[in-house]
């Protein structure tokens, strides 16, 4: 990787007769440093003791670490005072090699953070164990990697920024296509072939290390590895199709025999609010979604026993929401209360939601959609508690009728994936 021009840059006002005090005051990293010279530079600029800034940066570790981010940003962006009077060296971000080292260290910090989170036991809560600035660090590392690659491309393109734009655009689209193809191949079950290709590129790089050349292979190899790791982590499968599926069964006869609804990628809606719910009914539904959004809607008067999981994403069941890796949301109220929906759902990457609202429009988000305010989570939880109250066994028919009127027009699909058999059973009949 290239160090940018280490040649000292002379200040713009370089009149030989000008004294230093006449030049505009500039914020630079100082050579009188403990780490990168940021605190010393700030101290010199503001004419205060740099220890104040050092203490401030140190204390910021305990308030989310944002000060550390600020320190790193200043260390990268500020020019450095040179050895000679009035001399300034370009900021680190213009020098590829220090930038690569910093980005590499940051990526390793993120790796340690994520790796540690994934191992039990871990002294912090699993959901919040990652360092607050882990995400920004990774973002910076990737940005720095892209910048370093761009500098390499600029060199290959002859040094001109127009050439860089052209080569960069072609490279971006080429790598994007490669990444999408890799994700597709992995999602249809041939991820081992992509992994084999990565190993093969690795072997080629090792050979190239002795024969010369071949560094450019690193970039396409990572373009294969990132989507494959994503697919592997989320277990995304394109089985079940791609697109939008909306099911609004009006009777138990059109429910799939096994109660299973499946979609590979897209939006899957199972709106059970038009179903003829009777006391004693227990409906079993299972949702299997690869990548996207899944919604199950039930009348407010139906009790739901739910087990929703997301390998990566968000799950929400009547106000009980969870997100992140291996997110899980369960409802287990009013055992034996009917009518009842027994719902199991899993999404590899995306969102899965149970809506128990007779008026919510599940066809869209926003103010008229099924989620709009946090307060609605509490209302949803309250409705579910009432529906699962053992003292309430009868379903008011008026409520059920109301439920069937909402959103009934314009359905895109009313048939079940495997319609013709009933997924409904009477309580006590066995599963």
């Amino acid at each position, binding site marked *: 990787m290239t160090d940018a021009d280490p040649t000292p840059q002379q200040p713009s006002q370089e009149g030989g007769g000008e004294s230093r005090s006449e030049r505009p005051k500039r914020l630079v990293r100082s050579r009188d440093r403990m780490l990168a010279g940021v605190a010393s530079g700030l101290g010199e600029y503001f004419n205060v003791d740099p220890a104040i800034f050092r203490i401030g940066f140190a204390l910021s570790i305990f308030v989310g670490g944002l000060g550390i981010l600020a320190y790193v940003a200043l260390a990268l962006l500020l020019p450095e005072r040179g050895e000679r009077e009035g001399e300034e060296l370009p900021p680190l971000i213009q020098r590829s090699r220090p930038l690569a080292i910093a980005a590499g260290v940051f*990526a390793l910090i993120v790796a340690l953070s994520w790796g540690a989170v994934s191992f039990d036991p871990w002294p912090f809560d699993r959901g919040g164990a990652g360092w607050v600035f882990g995400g920004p660090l990774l973002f910076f590392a990737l940005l720095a990697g892209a910048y370093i690659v761009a500098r390499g491309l600029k060199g290959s393109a002859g040094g001109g920024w127009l050439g860089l734009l052209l080569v960069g655009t072609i490279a971006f689209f080429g790598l994007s296509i490669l990444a999408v193809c890799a994700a597709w191949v992995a999602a249809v079950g041939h991820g081992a072939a992509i992994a084999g290709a990565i190993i093969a590129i690795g072997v080629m790089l090792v050979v190239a290390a002795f024969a010369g050349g071949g560094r450019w292979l690193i970039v396409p190899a990572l373009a294969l590895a990132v989507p494959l790791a994503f697919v592997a982590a989320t277990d995304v499968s394109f089985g079940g199709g791609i697109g939008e599926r909306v099911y609004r069964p009006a009777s138990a006869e059109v429910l799939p025999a096994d109660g299973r609804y499946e979609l590979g990628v897209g939006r899957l809606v199972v709106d059970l609010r038009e179903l003829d719910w009777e006391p004693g009914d227990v409906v079993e539904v299972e949702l299997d979604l690869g990548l996207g959004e899944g919604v199950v809607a039930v009348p407010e008067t139906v009790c739901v026993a739910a087990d929703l999981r997301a390998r990566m994403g968000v799950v929400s069941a009547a106000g009980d929401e969870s997100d992140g890796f291996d997110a899980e949301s369960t409802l287990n109220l009013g055992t034996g209360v009917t009518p009842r929906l027994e719902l199991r759902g899993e999404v590899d990457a995306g969102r899965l939601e149970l809506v128990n609202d007779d008026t919510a429009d599940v066809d869209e988000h926003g103010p008229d959609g099924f989620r709009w305010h946090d307060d609605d989570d509490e209302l949803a939880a309250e409705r579910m508690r009432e529906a699962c109250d053992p003292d309430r066994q009868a379903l008011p028919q008026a409520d059920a009728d109301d439920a069937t009127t909402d959103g009934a027009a314009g359905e895109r699909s009313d048939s079940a994936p495997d319609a013709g058999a009933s997924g409904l059973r009477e309580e006590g009949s066995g599963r």
Partner: protein
Amino acid sequence: MSRGVDRVSLVSGLVLIGLGTVLLFDQTGAFDLSPGLLGAALAAAVGVILLASGIGEPAQSERDEEERERDPT
């Protein structure tokens, strides 16, 4: 290590072989890595490659670029 070996390519190649092997085992079902560990493996691979790039010798195109920056004429 001999003078003629490109350490960046060597380290990157070894890292990619390791990462590919981990992904291959995951895909063939030999073991099932969690999303966090896979993300960590990927970030570690990127980190080591970036570090190697920063520490290793510059490529020929980068040396040319450096030369151009030193002497634009």
